[in-house]
């Protein structure tokens, strides 16, 4: 019996010839990612474990992103304390409040390579499976153990293989595909599993789109999402990642818990409705729902491809007078690229508000908080009650094109109607 790509990575990282699903292994971590709001607890846990210094100051990446720049005295204090820790621990890769969302920064700066074992003190660390890594989110005490020892225990996950074929219709995006999948699998349908994406649609999909898919596997409970690395992966990483690049692939006779097939040729734009991510409907079933705010950004959909899709709708149009449109590029690189491409002008002329790269409105601690009774259509990854402000507000999730079209009309709208 062969091994899945996840089993191969965990076998290598745990120094074993082979591992199989269900086994508990202790494995060496290649990269540890720490964002602002979980950093203090993580470093505190390390010290309480009796270790004064991180195991490897070159393998720890710290990013201030959730409340960037600080919006309160508490947040400012956390940021100040993290800067002191970074200095004390001589952490080589530190990105301050000007960098962007940790997952976008980690990818752009080439910290993740195929075959790596990546842990992050943020649940959306699964994003990095887009590069053929085994990447998963952990809490602060687990991160403390990693900082102290460089190692962590993992239960080798069973894998679900998702085969996707067909060409995505115009203005239908990877976001629509992952929402469709989550609607089918359910919020806990992949708990403790690795979700592998494969098929002709995935082969033809950009790195940006693959990141969107892997980003949201946590919303069906998965431990990680993964796309086998290919030439696209290597092309993205050349010039970003240091050292040699090697690919890793699963065996043909690897064992899967489930195999699901999707054909996207006729896929309609999808919308996740309040207050659960798996409450997914085709846009035609929720069209006409009034919105107060549209948010385009986040680690799910704040990249160039996303902003280009939104701009293609907004160019020459104006945001509805009753709607606030927030556009938040996921990183400084995306911000600069979209500036060069004229996209920030498009958004601003259309009546949108471009904010600084950060987690922004996704997380509800900072920019774009919702009042009771308000409705937001967001391109981010969670629509939990209270996620973006008042527990009496509602959040719908959709693609950047759907968000842009809805911002123009003031109601949830199929972007294909504004083509």
């Amino acid at each position, binding site marked *: 019996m062969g091994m899945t790509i996840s089993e191969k990575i965990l076998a290598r990282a745990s120094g074993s010839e082979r591992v199989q699903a269900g086994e508990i292994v202790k494995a060496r971590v290649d990269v540890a990612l720490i964002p602002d709001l979980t950093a203090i*607890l993580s470093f505190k846990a390390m010290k309480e474990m009796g*270790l004064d210094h991180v195991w490897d100051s070159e393998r720890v990446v710290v990013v201030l992103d959730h*409340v960037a720049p600080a919006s309160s005295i508490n947040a400012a204090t956390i940021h100040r304390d993290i800067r002191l820790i970074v200095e004390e621990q001589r952490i080589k890769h530190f990105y301050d409040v000007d960098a962007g969302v940790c997952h976008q920064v980690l990818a752009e700066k080439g910290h993740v390579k195929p075959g790596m074992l990546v842990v992050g003190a943020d649940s959306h660390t699964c994003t990095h499976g887009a590069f053929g890594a085994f990447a998963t989110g952990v809490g602060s*005490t*687990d991160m403390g153990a990693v900082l102290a*020892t460089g190692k962590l225990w993992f239960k080798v996950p069973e894998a679900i293989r998702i085969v996707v074929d067909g060409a995505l219709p115009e203005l239908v995006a990877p976001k629509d595909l992952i929402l469709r999948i989550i609607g089918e699998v359910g*919020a806990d349908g992949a708990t403790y599993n690795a979700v592998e994406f494969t098929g002709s649609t995935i082969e033809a999909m950009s790195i940006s789109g693959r990141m969107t898919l892997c980003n949201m596997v946590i919303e069906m*409970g998965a431990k990680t999402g993964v796309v086998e690395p290919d030439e696209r992966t290597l092309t993205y990483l050349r010039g970003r990642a240091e050292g040699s690049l090697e690919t890793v692939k699963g065996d043909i006779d690897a064992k899967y818990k489930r195999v699901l097939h999707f054909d996207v040729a006729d896929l309609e734009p999808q919308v996740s409705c309040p207050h659960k991510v798996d409450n997914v409907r085709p846009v035609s079933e929720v069209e006409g729902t009034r919105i107060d705010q549209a948010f385009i950004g986040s680690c799910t959909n704040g990249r160039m491809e996303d902003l280009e899709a939104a701009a293609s709708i907004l160019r020459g149009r104006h945001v509805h007078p009753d709607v606030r449109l927030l556009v938040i590029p996921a990183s400084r690189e995306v911000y600069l690229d979209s500036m060069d491409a004229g996209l920030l002008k498009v958004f601003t002329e259309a009546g949108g508000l471009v904010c600084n790269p950060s987690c922004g409105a996704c997380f509800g601690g900072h920019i774009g908080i919702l009042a009771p009774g308000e409705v937001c259509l967001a391109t981010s990854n969670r629509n939990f*009650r*209270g996620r973006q402000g008042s527990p009496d507000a509602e959040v719908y999730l959709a693609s950047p094109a759907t968000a842009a079209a809805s911002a123009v009309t003031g109601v949830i709208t199929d972007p294909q109607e504004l083509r």
Partner: protein
Amino acid sequence: MIEMKLRGRVWKFGDDLNTDLIIPGKYLELTDPKEMAIHAMEGVDSNFAERVSPGDIVVGGRNFGCGSSREQAPLALKYAGVGAVVAESHARIFYRNAINIGLPALECPGVTDAVYAGDILEIDTTRGVIENTSTGIQLRFTLLPVFIGKILNEGGLVAYLRKHIDEW
């Protein structure tokens, strides 16, 4: 296996109770668990933190603790006084986080139908049995894997590693 007997009053919640509901994002700027505890379950029950008593047991449905990796969620529950979280199933990161801070997180299929809010439960972690003393109904829960039981038995991963870092 760990030896622990727990007894407490039930607070009952539904399926997919996410960590944003257990502690909303705006409180993640807090670093003192006692301050987090003031906001425990604020997203679903604003009276919870005030009315929960030491040792009380949170009973959840499927996928308890889904969403964000914030360890502030189990910390808020623990410091509010919660003695254990028993659910039909737990989301992966919450489950690890709870064990790591020494808060028993148990999976007990059927628990939702067998208990009501306010019932008194007795949990025998050695035998894997939960008794609802209000109704006499007994339920079996999935025993923790030995290695995970050891972490919990030591009071969490910090205490475990202080003792066993050489074996890690």
